[in-house]
């Protein structure tokens, strides 16, 4: 079983600060982390490997510093890491990203055939969730998004049983391998990595590829050039006008509020209980 997990380095939007003048993010305030969903993706691969055995590779496209999140993935339990890093990739939108990643996946697939690809549900910076299905289409394998459980992996039949989250509830899907999953956070708990993984990760140096390492890439489909979408303007979110204040002592405030709700707007009232 060979599972490849796509992992992305993202700014930690929890503590991110935006420069209100320029509407750009203040890099200093935003440490780069492993996209939380991708951490769960790696963890899920580890859980599958416990049952099936095999190898877990992680793949990332990003600047050289992205090595850090590949090491992080090794801490969680990945065996191998690939980083594709090149100016030509810069400024990619989801279409160009899935193109570049699929090229790398093809190359990995030649070295070591891939049975399953796992992505995060979305990256907390882009928040799009589009790269996963995009990769699946380019590799011509079925995408299964919003996965909350991998119930069964049957290596003989080459099938997986999967729970996929829906708006109200979930569905049970059976798919052939190879296939691509994108996982929700609730799919698992990230386990606390054993010391051995930590030491391995601290030493680990990923395989790094540049565009020149790929045959048959169309540069026109990479990075900014290969991105149909462009960012127009940035603006701070519109805030509706504030309404009126209800003044007075808390008693008076409560009284006025009751009036508004019961009489003026008559939104609330007592119904004979059934």
């Amino acid at each position, binding site marked *: 079983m060979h599972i490849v997990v796509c992992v992305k380095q993202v700014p930690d*939007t929890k503590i*991110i600060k935006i420069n209100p003048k320029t509407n750009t993010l203040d890099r200093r305030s935003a440490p780069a982390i492993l996209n939380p969903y991708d951490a769960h993706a790696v963890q899920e691969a580890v859980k599958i490997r416990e049952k099936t055995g095999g190898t877990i590779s992680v793949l990332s496209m990003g600047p050289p510093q992205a090595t850090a999140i590949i090491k992080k993935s090794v801490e969680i339990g990945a065996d191998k890491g690939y980083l594709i890093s090149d100016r030509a990739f810069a400024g990619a*939108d989801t*279409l160009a990203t899935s193109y570049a990643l699929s090229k790398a996946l093809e190359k990995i697939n030649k070295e070591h055939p891939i049975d399953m690809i796992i992505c995060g549900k*979305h990256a907390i*910076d*882009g*928040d*799009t*969730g589009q*790269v996963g*299905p*995009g990769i*699946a*289409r380019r590799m011509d*394998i*079925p*995408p*299964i998004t*919003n996965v909350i459980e991998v119930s069964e992996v049957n290596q003989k039949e080459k099938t997986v049983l999967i729970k*996929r*989250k*829906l*708006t*109200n*509830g*979930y*569905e*049970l*899907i*059976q798919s*052939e391998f190879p296939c691509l999953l994108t996982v929700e956070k609730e799919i698992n708990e990230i386990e606390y990595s054993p010391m051995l993984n930590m030491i391995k990760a601290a030493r680990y140096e990923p395989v790094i590829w540049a565009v020149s390492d790929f045959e048959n890439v169309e540069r026109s489909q990479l990075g900014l050039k290969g*991105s*149909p*979408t*462009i*960012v*127009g*303007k*940035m*603006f701070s*979110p519109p*805030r509706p006008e*504030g*309404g009126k*204040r*209800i003044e007075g002592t808390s008693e008076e*405030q*409560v009284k006025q*509020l*009751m009036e*508004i*709700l*019961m009489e003026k707007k*008559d*939104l*609330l009232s*007592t*119904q*004979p209980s059934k």
Partner: protein
Amino acid sequence: MNLDDYRGVWVFIEQNDGKIEGVSLELLGAGRKLADKLQVPLAGFLLGNEIKPLANKLISYGADIVYLVDHPVLKNYRTESYMKGVMLLAEKYKPEIILYGATPNGKDLASAVATDLNTGLTADTTMLDVDIDNRLLEASRPAFGGNIMATILCKKHRPQMATVRPKVMKALEPISGRTGKIIEEKISLNEEDMRTKVLQIVNDVTKRANLADAHVIVCGGKGMGDVQNFQLLYEFAETIGATVGGTRDVVEAGWLPHHLQIGQTGETVTPKIYFAVALSGAIQHVVGMKNSDLIIAINKDPNAPIFDVATYGIVGDALEIIPKLIEQFKQLRTEKGGEMSYV
């Protein structure tokens, strides 16, 4: 590609065993505006099995044309089968804009289709407009975790596609007897070619549903202090027949299960009455509730941003005011008899 070959605004109509998702109707509402500005027809396209009966409903909600692809293999949503249908329609009729609901299926489908059409796709849009001169869709969405908005454009590729968050656009009032064209496309699919099978669909309405459908929501924030105080809100909600929700900080503090989180990374809600109690009104929270009809904010900080969104603001200590409200409403109940609820 010649951009002028592409005309018309399309909306993907998501249906689950014969029921149309609310977001699809909202998008017909939003799409209508775009279509009128661009002076082109608005179309809804619908895939599934035995779905013809749904067509007229879509027309009453603003569609000029309804495209149908009906086939047993399309009974349940599957990326591989559905995208074949969409590709067929899109390549034949060449719309300039396609909108999808940002639901699990809508996002899944749009992402796959965008790849095969080799065109741009904007995710989780919350504002839509068009630049008429260049016939450009201006799809705006929160970026960097909601701290700012970015307008995404797709200049050189068609169709221009976007997924749109449920509950941010407004559906039109249906006009019964409104007329439009219904076009059905034949498609050849057979089950044997499918690599995925849907074995079972489980609806558990216990989750999510309740917040989404609630007429009255009492949402508490970190300012309630601790989980004990937070129980006050349950008592309050109970007295006025409301549902309790919370901010992310509250959920992360473990006072509330995750599915009751309201905001960007939680539920988007549009109740008739929204009580925002002891929460600051951070933008990521506000995007999830700002379309509520009536917003009442209780916060002891007069400068809390929530007051910019609130219809009525009460500057005061929630721990003092909420008990008083409970008391008052309980009194009313006993006087008048019966249950308190939204009319």
